[in-house]
């Protein structure tokens, strides 16, 4: 007898403030997606399907950061419906590029973009999901690496630990055989303090890493900043390099504020 389709584990995808790129990585999994679709039910994925199957869900993938009071409530509901909650991407994991507003007065920002600012409701800060609810796994990247996404989903479905390395982009560079752009060309690079996962693409394309994957485990940000200063980077350049896609990640935030106040 065919299995009742709702007896398969259910997967849901949720969106908060984001560009949709991380969800798109799931659609980009193409064959892998069709293969997973056999083992699980994609119960709620509005970007791809009209059909919505009620929770609870075995796995919830959460994209995007919290920027509104409404969303700060919605994430709690999602947590209650989800056995495992996995954040996908820099927005959900550190607050994303929109967390650049955390360093400015949000009202200034609203005034720059809108003629009638009164309609706008936006929290002061863009915050990661883990500041609001318990998160079981954080997958980094802007966007995430789709193969890593398949690995994490498979791991949770099979109740094992995901095999996602936490070392730096530097190590990936060495494995890939890249020549170091800092040593050979004097290009500033965040690779030494950035979480692996992209396979060191930027240095392979002759440019420095701007840390779209965010800080690695125990990043030595101070010593990298010293090196940047020796290379002649100005104070403003130092602030800006840490204020990128993962500006709100703890280590980067502290470092950019440190240079700002110096």
């Amino acid at each position, binding site marked *: 007898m065919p299995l009742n389709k709702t007896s398969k584990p259910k997967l849901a995808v949720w969106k908060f403030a984001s560009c949709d790129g991380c969800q798109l990585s799931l659609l980009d999994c193409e064959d892998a997606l069709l293969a997973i679709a056999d083992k699980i039910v994609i119960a709620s994925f509005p970007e791809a399907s009209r059909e*919505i199957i009620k929770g609870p869900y075995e796995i919830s993938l959460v994209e995007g950061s919290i920027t509104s009071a409404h969303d700060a409530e919605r994430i709690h509901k999602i947590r209650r419906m989800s056995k495992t909650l996995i954040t996908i991407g820099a927005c959900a994991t550190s607050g994303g590029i929109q967390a650049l*507003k955390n360093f400015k007065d949000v009202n200034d920002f609203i005034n*720059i973009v*809108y003629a009638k600012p009164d*309609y706008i409701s936006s929290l002061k800060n863009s915050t990661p999901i883990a500041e609001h609810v318990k998160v079981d796994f954080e997958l980094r990247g802007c966007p995430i690496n789709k193969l890593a996404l398949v690995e994490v989903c498979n791991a949770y479905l099979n109740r094992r630990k995901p095999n996602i390395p936490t070392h730096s982009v530097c190590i990936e560079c060495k494995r890939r055989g890249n020549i170091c752009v800092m040593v050979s060309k004097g290009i500033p690079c965040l690779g030494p303090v950035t979480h692996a996962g*992209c396979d060191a693409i930027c240095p392979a*394309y002759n440019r420095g890493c701007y840390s779209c994957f965010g800080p690695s485990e125990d990043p030595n940000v101070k010593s990298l900043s010293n090196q940047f200063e020796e290379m002649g980077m100005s104070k403003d350049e130092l602030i800006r390099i840490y204020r990128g896609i993962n500006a709100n990640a703890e280590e980067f935030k502290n470092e950019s504020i440190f240079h700002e106040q110096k």
Partner: protein
Amino acid sequence: MNKSKTKIINVDYLARVEGEGSLYLKIKDDKVQDIKFKIFEPPRFFEAFLRERHFSEVPDITARICGICPVAYQMGAVHAIENALGASLDNNLRELRRLIYCGEWIESHVLHVYMLHAPDFLGYQDAIQLAKDHPEVVNEGLRLKKIGNEIVTLLGGREIHPINVKVGGFYKLPTKKDFNSLLENLKWARTAAHSMIKLTSTLTYPDFEQDYEFVALRHPDEYPFNEGRIVSNKGLDIDVADFEKHFEEEQVEHSTSLHCKLKERGKYKVGPLARYALNFDKFSSEVQKAAKDAGLKEECYNPFKSIIIRSVETLHAVNEAIRIIENYVEPKKPYIEINPKESVGYGCTEAPRGICYHRYNLDSNGLVTNANIVPPTSQNQKSIESDLRELIPLIINLSDEEITWKCEQAIRNYDPCISCSCHFLKVSIDRE
């Protein structure tokens, strides 16, 4: 007794559009009383945080406006900044820019046609269910889309948020050899694009011609991607730098997004239908013939048929990619050196969903002092609402569920990339 009855249809979460939108309809005595197409994307303030960034950082930031069309936001940015700083790229670099855009068009159009839009026409909830009955169709679509991704990955380093696009050119150039396997795949893609056109031409379309003002780029020699004048079928013909003189964005209370309109005439439409009608003569004879064989005239006013036009444009993009790769000569340098100065520059490119306008003001150190970006979705808002207003009386006798689905389909005609409207307003949800 004939009691008047009021019906309210609320679609809280529009599926199969990128980003988040909702629709509110109030129908009284079989007449439409109120339509609200809402977008509830939280604001992300891109234009604000572009300020005080160095021009070289801009393409990496603007890419993050939209994960579906990051190349469009990078192209708009680099062209506007190069315009500001008086830089012009040699033809070989220019061709590579067109090539990466071909990749995005293929990827985005094929995703929309097969995964997001076709299920509507064929009565499926999504492409996964469509794949159960017609695996060969979906698999062909997936393979074609992957070839678009492959172009973006080869030139851009990865498929979403490419890292290789730079003001002045690229960080690194591909060699002729790098294109070998891609070229083979593109030859297959050409056949697949032809069958995509045939397939979409056999779908059933409602009679639904609308009187649109089409706005698109027009270039003297080619079907437009990155350059051209902004023209319309109602007499507009302006330089990109004059965009803000002719168009304005207004805040509309019920929607979260800014609506852009022509100052003189109000609503207009951008995207595949507009490009097609204004540039049909720029297609190769092969593409023109394929369009005609699919039953299209040189202009098409039925928004539901945008799915055929996306397929026609996919064929064009595949052929263009083949042409560029076959003629590829590696440029001498991956980029040209650009020096900052106090300046302002404008750029407008054809994103898959329509024209996307950028303006940047720079100071003498190359830092952005002001930025303005007008994405295609905010330009199409008014057309989307007016399509719905016209459509509902024609389908008013259907069940609520069917009306809902048809309206969703009409919105999906625009492939609205909602998160790309980089500035949004608070939604007031209307409950009755």
